């Protein structure tokens, strides 16, 4: 019985939410306000990996961990672009992913919010052009915001998203 009790205490201790610093708390608060005011408290993201090394996706995934906890801000990921409010693109835009991105862009509801993520997508990373790469994503899609970095860390992603939302009327 004692062990069970101790186990419960330990469980709570270990499941304790990690401590967010001042900047993170500020970002979370502002994002929550923006999402509440402009997207009725639910911002649905559709993420397309257009040819990345996977690092940008892992940093986007980190946003949903207990520290950044963007779920509690009203952010969620959807797997049908027609449900999405915002399209996020990561990685070098490959020729094989281009038609898929084009379809997704067409089905994205108006007004189309597109954010490009990472250095690769604008060719700022050390990759060279090949026949398999379509080119810079911002030439083919109207992306209002770009979040740079290789990859951008979760705080940079939050800052970029906040900047985008603040710019909306």
């Amino acid at each position, binding site marked *: 019985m004692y062990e069970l009790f101790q186990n419960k205490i330990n469980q709570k201790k*270990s499941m304790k939410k990690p401590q967010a610093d001042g900047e993170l708390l500020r970002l979370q608060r502002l994002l929550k306000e923006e999402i509440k005011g402009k997207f009725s408290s639910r911002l649905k993201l559709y993420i397309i990996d257009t040819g990345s*090394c*996977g690092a940008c996706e892992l940093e986007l995934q*980190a946003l949903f961990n207990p520290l950044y906890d963007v779920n509690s801000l009203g952010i969620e990921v959807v797997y049908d672009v027609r449900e999405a409010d915002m399209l996020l693109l990561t990685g070098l835009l*490959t020729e094989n992913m281009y038609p898929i991105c084009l*379809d997704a862009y067409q089905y994205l509801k108006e007004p189309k919010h597109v954010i490009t993520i990472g250095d690769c997508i604008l060719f700022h990373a050390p990759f060279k052009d090949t026949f398999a790469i379509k080119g810079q994503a911002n030439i083919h899609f109207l992306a209002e915001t770009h979040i740079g970095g290789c990859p951008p860390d979760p705080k940079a992603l939050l800052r970029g998203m906040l900047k985008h939302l603040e710019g909306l009327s």
Partner: protein
Amino acid sequence: MRLIARFAKEQEACFEIITVYDTRVVKERINKVTPALLSIAKEYPTAVWFERKITDDFGIEILYSNDKRPLLKHEHFPKDIYPMRKSFSKLSVDYLEIESDTSVDNHGVILGPTVPYHLESSQYQLFNRNSDILHFEVIPFYKYRAIEKMVEGMTLDEAKPIVSRISGASTVAYQLAYLEIQLQASKKTLPSTLKIKHMFFLEFERILNHLSDLGLMCQFINFIEGFSFFMKLLEEGRETMNELTGHRFGFSVIDMETTPIDLRKGYDFIRYVEKELLWFEKWIKTKYSFWKKLIQQGVISREEASEFGLVGLVARSVNLDLDRRTDDKLYREYSFVVAQEGIGDASARFKIRLTEIHTSLRMMRRVLDNRAYPFFLGSFKDGEYYSYIESAGGELMMYLEIKDEKIERFFVRDPSFLNAQALSRCVKGNELDTLGLIIKSIPLSFSANDL
């Protein structure tokens, strides 16, 4: 013999096919006029993807193969262009117009390329009856960036930042495989202090990958506390990696000009993960509802694993003693023991990851030594070089041919290239709602697979 890789390269008068087995390397020359190659897929089922890629890359016909579908050239790619031939040097091709994708047709259901099962773009073809999976297949190369072609003609130093960004999750393993080739080509031996430091970060990367996979496996069985637990540890790990290397993934951590590892931060991380993990293991030990969801899901037998030549923890989950680290003198000195399980299901792959984290932590604890001194590689000699690294996903093989100090042919075989082909066997007969768990229980990296 175990098949490791099969690929082609072009020479002046012929094509050369290089088949790498665990015990030897076989080279065959075929003419350029009517290039054709005998398939070895009957003996080695995973040769199919290698051979389909050879056809797409060079236009070499594969004889007696029962699967001649294109692999990396998707339907909009012009059929008469073979991009890895030396005569092809264009930066663009006229891609064909293709009708919009139909998601359901007579050929099964196409899932993806954006799917909840995997963060990276990848398509799956699924055949099911009611809730049972009849057949399942991976359709790769959506992220095909032609990196093999991209680095041809570059110096080894120019190509290094590209190779380190092939796969973000396995960047340390890729950097180490590349360094191994640089060492062979410069006829140098790495000082032990540097080797020890590199081993520390390779094991660190393994821990981060395992934590991420364990978290996502928990998420797919709706064990949200487990997901939060592993994601919290992963975040601590990424932050520690950032503090130790200046980057959350360690993109340029494998260098020659060594700086000592921060002992305090290293020890703190090891102690923290050890303590948390022990608590977690104690907690889930008797959590039968948790194990029930993993046991007998996505089973692969020892025979199937051998037949497919599977690598990494998928092979080790059926008691196959397959780990490149056992060949490494340094690992042997540090009393490295391979983690193995016998059942070959998702629970075995879950347990192996937990054991491997403990093993990696033990190795890291022993290598924390802040003594270091500078080392220089010098010039690289022309020739062919092979390297093998045990990445978090399994055995990673890299090949480089250097001519006039520049890259003539670059080839890399990620563990995903073999393991992804076994997914069809793993999921066959399972229920549809276990698909996510099974896919996540097998370490796959499409950025490294699609290259």
